[in-house]
């Protein structure tokens, strides 16, 4: 697992050192690799009978997790919003 993070950090360092050269092609490579990997994930999923049969339950579980994640994050964002802006405005009025 640390190999992956190590590879990313090496990339960050190398990208920083090569700052003078705009590596604009890198986004295309990233997109291609993402397409390849999601295709491979698809092949893996499609070849697995148990997952195919349970796809609707997996979808439902996915929705439950996303709703939890979004609600949790927007409540946290509201707390920061309130502290940074609303509270200050009220103090200004008073």
């Amino acid at each position, binding site marked *: 697992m640390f190999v992956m993070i190590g590879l990313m950090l090496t*990339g960050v360092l190398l990208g920083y050192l090569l700052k003078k050269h705009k590596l604009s092609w890198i986004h295309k490579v990233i997109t291609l690799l993402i*397409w390849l990997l999601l295709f491979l994930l698809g092949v893996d999923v499609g070849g*697995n009978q148990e997952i195919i049969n349970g796809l609707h339950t997996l979808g439902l579980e996915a929705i439950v997790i996303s709703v*939890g994640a979004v609600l949790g994050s927007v*409540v946290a964002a509201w*707390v920061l919003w*309130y502290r940074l802006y609303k509270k200050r405005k009220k103090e200004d009025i008073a």
Partner: protein
Amino acid sequence: MKGSLIIVSFFVIGILCGVYHLIPFDFTQSKLSYYALGALMFCVGLSVGNDSQTLKKVRLLNPGLVFLPIMTILGTLAGTALVSIFLSNRSLTDCLAVGSGFGYYSLSSIFITEYKGSELGTIALLSNIIREVITLLFAPLLVKYFGNLAPISAGGATTMDTTLPIIARYSGQGFVIVSIFHGFIVDFSVPFLVILFCSI
């Protein structure tokens, strides 16, 4: 949105190839996806290190907004932990790993597939796509009920690219830099958190 559709179609084409055994040799036994993932991580690092603009713009921010990515991460993890109660056949760490994708479905699903298998990987893919879609569709409502920072938090790691236009539209142009900064930090935290929750 067009980008997301292309990605989803690659996944769907892959499923069809898998279901009908259209690919002669067995990918799952090969280490192809592992090497491709390594190459992807390296390229993501390169693009971050090479982009000096993002790092420069950070200095222009309202200092309090530095905490927004932290709020997003903590809020997401708390929300996911809470709903994991309703998902009896998934462990807390599985749910947290999926939640730690923060909408970055490509990277998080690939990672989770590698470490936890393709079933949880599929949940991660779907869940994080849904998160992006929720942000795109409900941004105006989120601003109304939870303030201007809400769509940025909801967007998670996607706020520097796919959901940026909608945030600019509904939170206001003044939040674009915050949004990019937020996306940058949350994006960067994805591999660390996903790997952490996959390994405990």
